[in-house]
């Protein structure tokens, strides 16, 4: 990174939209038209991406490790499901927001538990909360449908106009728009002074509080926001699949989420999106080849990625583009490793 005069211009430079980002989103939109028969898996990826984005907000920017983010996902999912099932709010967008708000409240209430303690403690407390909710869902199976889940959910058309179809087209565009809007919001937040203070907290909470950043308040705020995002991801899940069962709270969901985010890289918002694509495609690829033992190959890929190291992989992946850019721009500083967990 070339030296910049002061923090504020550095922050402004980061906040500007780069051409590569615009290209990314255009590519995503293009996928809708390039692969008209794969709407379902692409919607799956979009939902996972939104969920991963929510975790990135706390993991990548505030340094809070959470193994129980599925708690908020699940709350959002069941909320949306129950709202649709009992006809309380039939318009999907309203139900989406309502579900997100409920998850946000839960996030706020549990944030006080999470700001205490070290990494491992947080991991277990968040996990404990998710498992507790799962146990509760099981206990009140007359409301939640227990292991079998909510049956018979039927989604009304979005804004009264766009009905959910079997091919998943409506679901895909709905998810894409929701993801994009929330992404814009997240991007705005992390590039604001609030977002910068979060990064300070992540690096050294003691120092941050010494310069006057209200550490606990900021952590509670970002955790609550992250819960909101996760809740919306969950509600999106139920609305696009018309299903909600106890798996939404499961440990596997939170664990898969961590994998996705670590795969893609934390701290620059796109990590969740890229990780989601990579993870889902790998899973799809392997389970088509071997429906029974795909887990082995995914495990192998993960091990190899960690051993080779993401930095080295980035360098290899960027070798060709760097070569090209150097021809045109003649400069040495090209693409830096974008993760903020580089020291």
């Amino acid at each position, binding site marked *: 990174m070339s030296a910049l005069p002061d923090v504020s211009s550095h922050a402004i430079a980061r906040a500007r939209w*780069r051409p*590569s*980002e615009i*290209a*990314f989103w255009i*590519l*995503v939109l293009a*996928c809708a038209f*390039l*692969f008209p*028969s*794969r709407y*379902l*898996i692409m919607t*799956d990826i979009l939902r996972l991406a939104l969920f991963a984005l929510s975790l990135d907000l706390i993991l990548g920017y505030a340094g809070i490790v959470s193994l129980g983010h599925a708690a908020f996902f699940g709350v959002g999912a069941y909320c949306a499901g129950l709202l649709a099932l009992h006809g309380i709010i039939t318009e999907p967008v309203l139900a989406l927001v309502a579900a997100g708000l409920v998850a946000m409240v839960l996030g706020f209430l549990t944030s006080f538990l999470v700001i205490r303690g070290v990494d491992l403690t947080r991991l277990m407390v968040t996990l404990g909360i998710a498992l507790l909710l799962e146990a509760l869902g*099981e206990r009140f*199976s007359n409301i939640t449908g*227990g*292991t*079998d*889940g909510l*049956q018979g959910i039927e989604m009304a058309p979005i804004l009264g106009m766009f009905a959910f179809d*079997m*091919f*998943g087209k409506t679901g895909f565009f709905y998810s894409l728009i929701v993801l994009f809007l929330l992404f814009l919001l997240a991007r705005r937040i992390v590039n604001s002074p609030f977002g910068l203070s979060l990064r300070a907290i992540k690096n050294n909470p003691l120092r941050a509080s010494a310069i006057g950043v209200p550490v606990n308040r900021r952590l509670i705020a970002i955790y609550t926001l992250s819960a909101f995002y996760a809740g919306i991801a969950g509600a999106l*899940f139920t609305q696009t*699949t*018309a*299903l909600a*069962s106890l*798996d939404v709270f499961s440990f596997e969901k939170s664990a898969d989420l961590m994998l996705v985010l670590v795969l893609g890289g934390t701290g*620059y918002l*796109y990590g969740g999106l*890229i990780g989601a*694509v*990579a993870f889902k*495609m790998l899973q*799809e*690829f392997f*389970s*088509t080849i071997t*429906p*029974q033992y*795909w*887990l082995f190959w995914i495990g192998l890929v993960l091990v190899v990625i960690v051993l080779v190291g993401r930095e080295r992989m*980035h360098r290899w*992946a*960027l070798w*060709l*583009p760097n070569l090209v*850019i150097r021809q045109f721009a003649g400069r040495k500083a*090209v*693409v830096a490793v*974008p993760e903020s967990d580089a020291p």
Partner: protein
Amino acid sequence: MLRNVFTAAVITVTVALLNFSASAQDAVKIGLILPMTGGQASTGKQIDNAIKLYMQQKGDTVAGRKIEIILKDDGAVPDNTKRLAQELIVNDKVNFIAGFGVTPAALAAASLATQAKIPEIVMAAGTSIITERSPYIVRTSFTLAQSSTIIGDWAAKNGIKKVATLTSDFAPGHDALNFFKQNFTAGGGEIVEEVKVPLQNPDFAPFLQRMKDAKPDAVFVFVPAGQGGNFMKQYAERGLDKAGIKVIGPGDVMDDDLLNGMGDAALGTVTAHLYSAAHPSAMNKEFVAAYKKAFNSRPGFMAVGGYDGIHLIYEALKKTGGKTDGDALIEAMKGMKWESPRGPISIDPETRDIVQNIYIRKVEKVDGELYNVEFATFEAVKDSGKTKK
């Protein structure tokens, strides 16, 4: 952030490469959705094995068309099932969807079967309401109502007065409990303790302790295929067999797949079920021998569900002359009767559910191995669990 674009481009190209799906026009495609990983993996494996065996024996061409099986793993998670079913229908253009290891999976795919007008062949799930969810669902497995009502009657008539029940807390478990209670109490029996165990990771020890303290004559057990062994071990360890408390229930707990590993504690257990590997028919002996030879294990009731399911598909295609119109296939399947390794079975034309013999059997040692030996037969048992109109 050029890296993002590059990575995205690489991924896009990979996706495009994976997206080819040229298909032979003439083949009949069956989308087989089974739990091949996770807690219900043994069910998925049995059904997959049985289908492979059938196709090995009978060939893969019917009515002049080739049969192609597309196997997908849903891990018994219903949203996976739904997505896989949708993709199979929309992308691979399958003519049948089959399998469905658990009730929620079968239910998740029901609306798709109706929308796409494709037969859904349920080979494993056992809750009564499944066939009511779509006019395109046909079942070749079983319902808990069939076995639970029979064992309820048998228990009441055979000196068992007090029963404690232990059932898994999900739809088939509730079915098993309710139908057993219905018939058992109608015959004069009394339920002294009722315990519902969670479906995942059950530790039966504390629950069994409760049962022991309630001092019943017998314990009625229903746990899904795969957990029976665990239960019997805990039962023996707790000393319930020494205390004279018998085990009764639908045969899921004495699944042939696991029976041999349970040890002598299982001897004498009486269950009512649709299939035993020891069923004394020539066809079954051949089936068991062929399965053992090919897969080095004993077939259980899940395998039979798969074997009969693929048979049903073959026969239906023969009847329609190879045409794959959904309505015609369903009509062809209604009322079909045939001899299966489990005994004579047929498809009820009104409910599209399976009608089969239920046998009462006891666990005995035959040639050094444990088997469910049948000693009473109830013929042509229909599912009594359908919603009364």
